[in-house]
């Protein structure tokens, strides 16, 4: 598993730089994770202008909290995602955002992926299909929580379903994603089979 090792090494290298207070870490993080973080931020704020401001805020926070990063509490990517996501959700809740934001469908934002390697691009096309295969009633729960920052109670009110149902859908949704992403081959076969059933 050379690939995993190199990813881990790279991640460890970044963590070391962060802990040492080396600003080079930020540039490496940007090169490595910006498209993923930007995609999530853009999905949340739905405005390229606001998304760029959020990205700056998020990186400042990454730098400020560099010494707080704890590997035991999740990967560097999860940590970065959570910072960016929280900054984006905060932005959507600001007064300025509510006044100035135009309603805009995510579908209108052009998806470009230049910075990611070709391999991951191909993988993503597959991933998007697999994600698309996730039943929309589960997907909406995950999207409301993950991209909109809704609490489960708010999701229940929004979708008019009991809190218990929200919780069970969260569970099922994540398990479906786990099947898809941790057993991609199995997921793919299931997906293909589902086409013919």
């Amino acid at each position: 598993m050379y690939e995993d090792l190199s990813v881990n090494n790279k991640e460890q290298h970044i963590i070391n730089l962060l802990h040492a207070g080396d600003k080079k870490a930020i540039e490496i993080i940007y090169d490595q994770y910006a498209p993923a973080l930007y995609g999530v931020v853009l999905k949340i704020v739905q405005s390229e202008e606001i998304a760029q401001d959020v990205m700056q805020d998020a990186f400042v926070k990454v730098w400020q909290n560099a010494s707080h990063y704890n590997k035991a509490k999740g990967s560097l990517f999860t940590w970065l995602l959570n910072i960016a996501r929280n900054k984006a959700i905060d932005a959507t809740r600001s007064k300025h955002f509510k006044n100035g934001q135009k309603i805009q469908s995510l579908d209108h934002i052009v998806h470009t992926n230049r910075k990611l390697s070709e391999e991951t691009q191909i993988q993503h096309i597959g991933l998007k299909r697999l994600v698309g295969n996730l039943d929309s009633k589960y997907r909406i729960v995950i999207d409301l929580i993950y991209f909109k920052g809704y609490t489960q109670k708010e999701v229940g009110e929004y979708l008019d379903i009991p809190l218990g149902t929200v919780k069970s859908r969260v569970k099922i949704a994540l398990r479906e994603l786990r099947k898809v992403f941790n057993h991609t081959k199995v997921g793919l076969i299931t997906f293909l089979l589902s086409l013919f059933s």
Partner: protein
Amino acid sequence: MDIQKYIASGIIEQYVLGLTSEEEGTAVEQAAAQYPEIQQHIEELRNSIEQYALAHAITPPSGLKNKVLQSVDPSRAPVETPTIPSKKGIPFWLGGVLTAAFLTAAIMAGMFYWNNQSQQEKLDQLKTEMATLQENCDLLKNSNQQIIAALKDPNTKHIHLRGTAVSPESLVVAFWNENDEEAYLNVINLPNPPEKHQYQLWADIDGKMVSMGVLDLKGDEVLSIPFMAQAESLNITLEPEGGSEHPNVEQLHVSGEV
């Protein structure tokens, strides 16, 4: 502790999405530290969420990197990021644009070609039609010129074929030119033949009726008829369609001496 039951409870899913309280979170972390199976479940779920986020990845605008680096380190001098696309190859989005452009061009070329082909076919068709019309026109012109020439010729005799008792109102005029051995027939008035019947023209030669053919009456055009030098009179009878060998004298409609 029943690990499977703990995993099945859904608390781990709540935890990885950050939906648990601080207390619950600490409990999950303790369980994970104790049981590798729980730890693995957490990691798999986190990985799923990472992958889910990655599935939404979008390249940020090129200027953003500088802004980010400067907001982290204000002392940093702005560096112009080259906007020229990577030299490694065509950026994939440009590839897409080029592919789309190429396909569009190819489809349009195909359409033009096909269109051109069908236009060419139409043009050829029209050319043929035009040639046919021209030919008909020439034929008509020639025959009209011939008729006019015959009519103008002082040697042309006008023979009046007058109606018999059967058809007193009928009148046909023949133009008879012995010099040029040409003959024409101008039907001025003949009743429309009944169904399945036709008029037939006869020349009286030495007391015998010789058929000169059936008349194909179409409007009021002048008909070209054979010239028969020995004809003493011209006679038109009504016969069954296609004509007869011998005239039905009871149905003699017009007659005139040459």
